[in-house]
């Protein structure tokens, strides 16, 4: 038996692409949740003291525990409350919530970096609270945090394979099935790894370029 069979490697490609579709769906939807929820958490984190403490505690708890366990938690516990969702939806929710705790820190740093004078000027103009956020603070904070958010999207992309724990057939889930049928794992997992590298390496180079360009300004 050859170690590497090009023919078989070619046969895996359709499965890889099928899995890639699921991986990308999970990453994109998970990132959207993380972007929105993270911003909500960051703004709540600047609220009154009791709110701030509760938000901090939740963020710390989620950040300090494994995403895989949180995925299982949602998958097994939600049905007990009568919420039965498809595995991919559960996975997207877990990814989104987990990464929201990271993006909230990113937003927090970005908001802190907006000069005090901007807040004072907005108050002096007696802008309403929502206008201060949407018109003054966030337009300055968000461009600054884009590279950091980009890093977390890449890191989420690489973490989606743990959704195989609840039966989602992403890239790794697909090649595991194909590899298992024929007991040829070398091609399956090598190609899966290369596919991840092929997509995440250029993406992280792009983020680094963005970071440098921001640093110059």
């Amino acid at each position, binding site marked *: 038996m050859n*170690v590497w069979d090009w023919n078989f490697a070619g046969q895996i490609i359709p499965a890889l692409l099928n899995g890639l579709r699921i991986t990308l769906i999970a990453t994109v939807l998970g990132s959207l949740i993380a972007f929105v929820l993270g911003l909500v958490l960051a703004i709540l984190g600047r609220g009154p003291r009791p709110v701030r403490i509760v938000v901090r505690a939740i963020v710390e*708890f989620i*950040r*300090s*525990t*494994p*995403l*895989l*366990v*949180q995925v*299982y*938690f949602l998958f*097994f*516990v939600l049905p*007990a409350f009568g919420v039965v969702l498809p595995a991919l939806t559960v996975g997207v929710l877990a990814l989104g919530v987990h990464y929201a705790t*990271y993006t909230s*820190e*990113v937003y927090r*740093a970005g908001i802190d970096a907006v000069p005090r004078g901007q807040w004072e000027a907005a108050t002096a103009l007696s802008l309403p609270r929502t206008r201060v956020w949407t018109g003054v603070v966030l337009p300055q904070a968000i461009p600054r945090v884009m590279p*950091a958010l*980009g*890093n*977390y*999207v*890449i*890191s989420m992309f*690489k*973490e*989606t*394979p*743990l959704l*195989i*724990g609840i039966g989602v057939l992403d*890239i*790794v889930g697909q090649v*595991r099935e194909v*590899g298992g049928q024929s007991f040829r*794992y*070398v091609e*399956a*997992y*090598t190609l*899966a*790894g*290369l596919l*991840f*590298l092929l997509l*995440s*390496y250029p993406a*992280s180079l792009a*983020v680094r370029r963005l970071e440098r360009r921001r640093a110059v300004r």
Partner: protein
Amino acid sequence: MDNLGTFLSVLSQGLPFTIIATVAGILLTIVLSFVAGLALMSSSKTVRVISRIYVEGLRGTSEVVQLFWIFFALPVLVGFQIVPLWAGILVLGLNHGAYGAEIVRGAVQSVPRAQVEGAIALSMTPAQRMCRVILPQAVVEMLPSFNNLFIQLLKSTALLSFVSINEITRQAQQVLVPRFNPQAFQIFLLLLVMYLIMSLVITAIMRTLERVAAARVGRKPSARSRSQATGAGIA
């Protein structure tokens, strides 16, 4: 809460695996971080290229893929199977070592140039310069980032449940949940709390080390290095 005793005893059977994997993974991570991190700054181009390939290759491919690769593909290539726990530790160390290498490089490069020039002026050898001037200062900068990295590593040990290592996540998901399905909420909450406690222990140890390392170079732990502990540079 019924069955709490059962839950605790079943989960704690997995605890040695989680702890061994975490501690051994951290040790391997430290070694690889320093070797690869210093190699990234080597004057030899070959050494730089090799370490760059290691760092980008392991950061760019998914950790789950690396785990499956070592478990299912490597035995075909080398003809024998590594003991599962060791293979797991190897993946944890290799993967997090690649992230750690960038931490080491960043911290060493952040040491002010004048420190190196001063050491040269005192006619220290390159080894003395590194061990007695640069690294003691760089380590202070590294520790908050390593704290984050080690917590990431602890969290990654849950992935070992995919390859039949009976650590605590597998104990919960394979042993407890099938038997006590209606109590899944309690089981997983307990599991999450166990991870939380372990990560608090890691943070406590690292904070102590930060103080010791800062005191050794005559500083207090800086507020700046504290704020770096909030997860920059994960990807």
